[in-house]
């Protein structure tokens, strides 16, 4: 999961794409160490715990939980991982490049 995410973020760094982590491990100091250890470069929200405010609002009770959101802010896919996640992202990037009429 993580190696594929890193590769995707690197490959798409010039595209209108962002990966946002919502991390449940603890406070900012804890998460900084985890990000450094795993060489994670993308932005991570500090949610504090599995009962954090974002996980609670978005009704997350399994980790990882993934939503893929298009350039208009619409939820288009959920619970896609690895190649399925990449396929979803590429399909939505193609929409940005050639908007549907």
């Amino acid at each position, binding site marked *: 999961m993580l190696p594929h995410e890193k590769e995707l973020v690197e490959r798409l760094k010039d595209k209108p794409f962002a990966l946002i982590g919502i991390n449940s491990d603890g406070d900012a100091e804890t998460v900084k160490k985890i990000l450094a*250890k795993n060489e994670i470069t993308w932005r991570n*929200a*500090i*949610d504090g715990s599995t009962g954090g405010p974002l996980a609670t609002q978005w009704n997350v009770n399994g980790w990882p939980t993934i*939503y893929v959101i298009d350039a208009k*802010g619409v939820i288009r896919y959920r619970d896609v991982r690895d190649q399925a996640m990449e396929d979803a*992202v590429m399909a939505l*990037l193609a929409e940005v490049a050639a908007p549907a009429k």
Partner: protein
Amino acid sequence: MSRSSPRLGRAWLAVTVPLVLATASPAQEGDPAAPQEQFTPEARLEALVERLNAARQEYYRAYDEAKTDEEKDAVFAKEPSAAFVPEFRALADSIAGTEPAAQAWIWVVRLSQRVDGGAPAKEALGMLTSRYIDSPALGDLARELEYAGYSLGLDACEGTLRTVIEKSPLRAVQARAQYTLARILMRGRGRQLSEEAALERRAEAKRLFADLAGRFGAEDAGRGRTYAAQAERNLFEIDRLQIGMVAPDFECTDADGVKFKLSDYRGKVVVVDFWGDW
């Protein structure tokens, strides 16, 4: 996050120990010469669960020690759950009518979802919803069924839960079954559904969650949450987090202490990944 059965097993044991103490019997465990019938149903069930847990520990140890994929496959083929199904089934028959018998049937459900196309599990569901419908253990059964749709089919899971909601005399069991049924309806795991069918199921899930909040709102739904709080979260998911809906905005703080909003990323394709390093 995977739901491991050994963890459930331990949680369950913690519940049964007081039962065993409460029905103290002259027969003691650990005397292999004594015929099984001397032991209380509680002690017999506990002994069987302990043997299952020991077999699983041995299985995990062997799996960890296996070096090649072939060795791991060979160990995996001997995963002990299926071998224990006939034992729990026989015990349930032998102590029929007791509370531990209901629990033994729930073990059959837990262990046999991938055995003989789920036939033993379905037989167990039939027994539990007829002979053991009064049992408080049916709350545990409801929990088992939330993710059983893949193996047992949604019809078996939903039918069982509807019967429990209607016929259990216990409020806690009714509430748990209604919550689980609503969760299954909302997520539709285990079946490819048409868009229309999925919408209809989510509409029923909404009615069930609203009713749950109304009738059982203040009661404990586990993990320190009330059914009112759980219903609210799930209704938010149904109303705001479905595919095709504009994602609800949120504001949060990143690891560098900088605040940001999801809506800051409008114009970009965004993957939102709820994760933890465990």
